[in-house]
């Protein structure tokens, strides 16, 4: 057992402040993704409503926006916002701030599209039935359309949220030191003493990400079950 602990580099984890630093790195990851997720949900819902408009101008703008987000790798967006902004307009963003902009830009587009899909999936006869029963517009929205939309939206948006959290290691490329970067620092600092530390450290990273994403999935399935009754 002792040999296993040493071989796989788990002992490295508890040397000095290594473990605290790893948790600190995870916190950076979480902070950036949670802020971006919160902004994306708010802006995404608004965007989703705009996307259902029959106005050709907003339609075209939303279409272009969505396509840009779909086509561009997030890494390219990060480079454009972090380095490009400095080069073109001399703006000096903190890297964490640039990361939040990019993740929100991405999340808003995807969230908007999910909201649009959910809104459009409510059949027209439900609106008509509601109006026939004498409900006004806001009553129809708040009692009929929105509750159903949220239910349809939930599994899809949870999927988006976990995807965003899992994409954060990319921000290493714009000089943010987050969990995977801290892991690499620790592995390298112990390259000679514990050459196999990589396994142990990335296993811990796996556990940390699991610990963050699993409760979110649990909450989603709990809500889904609750609302289906």
């Amino acid at each position, binding site marked *: 057992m002792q040999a296993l602990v040493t071989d796989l580099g788990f002992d490295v984890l508890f040397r000095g402040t290594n473990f605290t630093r790893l948790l600190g790195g995870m916190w950076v990851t979480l902070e950036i993704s949670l802020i971006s997720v919160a902004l994306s949900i708010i802006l995404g819902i608004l965007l989703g409503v*705009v996307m259902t408009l*029959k106005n050709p101008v907003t339609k075209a703008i939303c279409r272009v926006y969505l396509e840009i987000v779909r086509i561009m790798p997030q890494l390219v967006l990060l480079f454009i916002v972090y380095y490009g902004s*400095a*080069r073109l307009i*001399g703006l000096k963003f*903190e890297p964490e701030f640039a990361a939040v902009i990019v993740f929100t830009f991405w999340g808003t587009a995807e969230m908007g599209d999910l909201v649009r899909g959910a809104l459009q999936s409510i059949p027209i006869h439900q609106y008509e039935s509601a109006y026939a029963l004498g409900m006004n517009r806001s009553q129809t929205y708040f009692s009929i359309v929105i509750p159903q939309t949220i239910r349809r939206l939930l599994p899809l948006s949870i999927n988006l949220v976990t995807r965003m959290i899992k994409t954060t290691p990319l921000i290493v490329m*714009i000089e943010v030191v987050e969990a995977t970067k801290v892991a690499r620092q*620790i592995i390298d600092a112990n390259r000679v003493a514990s*050459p196999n530390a990589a396994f142990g450290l990335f296993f811990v990273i796996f556990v940390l990400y699991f610990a963050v994403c699993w409760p979110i999935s649990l909450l989603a399935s709990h809500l889904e079950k609750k609302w289906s009754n």
Partner: protein
Amino acid sequence: MYMKNTKLFKLLALAVAVLMVVGVMAGCSKATEADKGETTANSDSSDTIYRSLDEIKESGSIKIGVFSDKNPFGFVDENGEYQGYDVYFARRIAKDLGVEVEFVSTEAANRVEALQTGKVDIILANFTVTEERAQQVDFALPYMNVALGVVSPSDKAITDLSQIGTDDAVIVISGTTAEIYLEENNPEITLKKYDTYSDAKTAFENGQGVAWANDNTEVIAYANTVDGYTVGIPKLGSDDTIAPAVTKGNESLLNWINDEIKSLADEQFFHKDYEETLVDTYGKDYEEELVVEGGVIK
């Protein structure tokens, strides 16, 4: 009904647009505010992306880009402190400038970009001077030598490339100077390429090649830590140097660094640096070969 609909939605759309613009503007002003401490001087004197010597001194801190995962040049120790040969020099620069040092963890591929966009004032990240890079950034005087080296098993040591037979293979890591050099100058040698350090190491130890070519610092460190291997060729190809780099055009900072490197020769600073940071990895034997003192290449 429909008329009302579109009106309502137009209003909503407008609200969203306003929100987004406000969001972006708030973001910008926040970013500028955060940077105010360091860029106020910038705004009155010039529009340059870099900070001049005076601006750095005025702000009270210097941003130095170093590696945080390249032991023993730049790495983070178990207490979360930056350490290594480059870091040791970086701390001295900050001390002599009379400012705080702020380390920025840098990736190899971003070193040029970080300088060109003013994200750091100096790069001290094992930055090899090449002609191509010199067009994009300004290098100061060198503080270390680097060349290629070849390591092989001690009982079948390769001391000259001509010893490598036609059936033998040499191990290299893809994208390194070793690969480029051997392909250009010794195309007759069969190369086995691996993507990562650990893959190449495993392959070498399992006898996949008769030798392993890499930066000489890497092969020396390897032979010193693993029994049964010798650096048969400690120097191969052209001698390259490692130097600090600043944003192109940042004359005041560049001149200051050059003067600093020259004056540090009096106290044999880089020899001390070597003994503090590199001696465990490379041993005493390579000190003269690796260290460049006062920017003078022997």
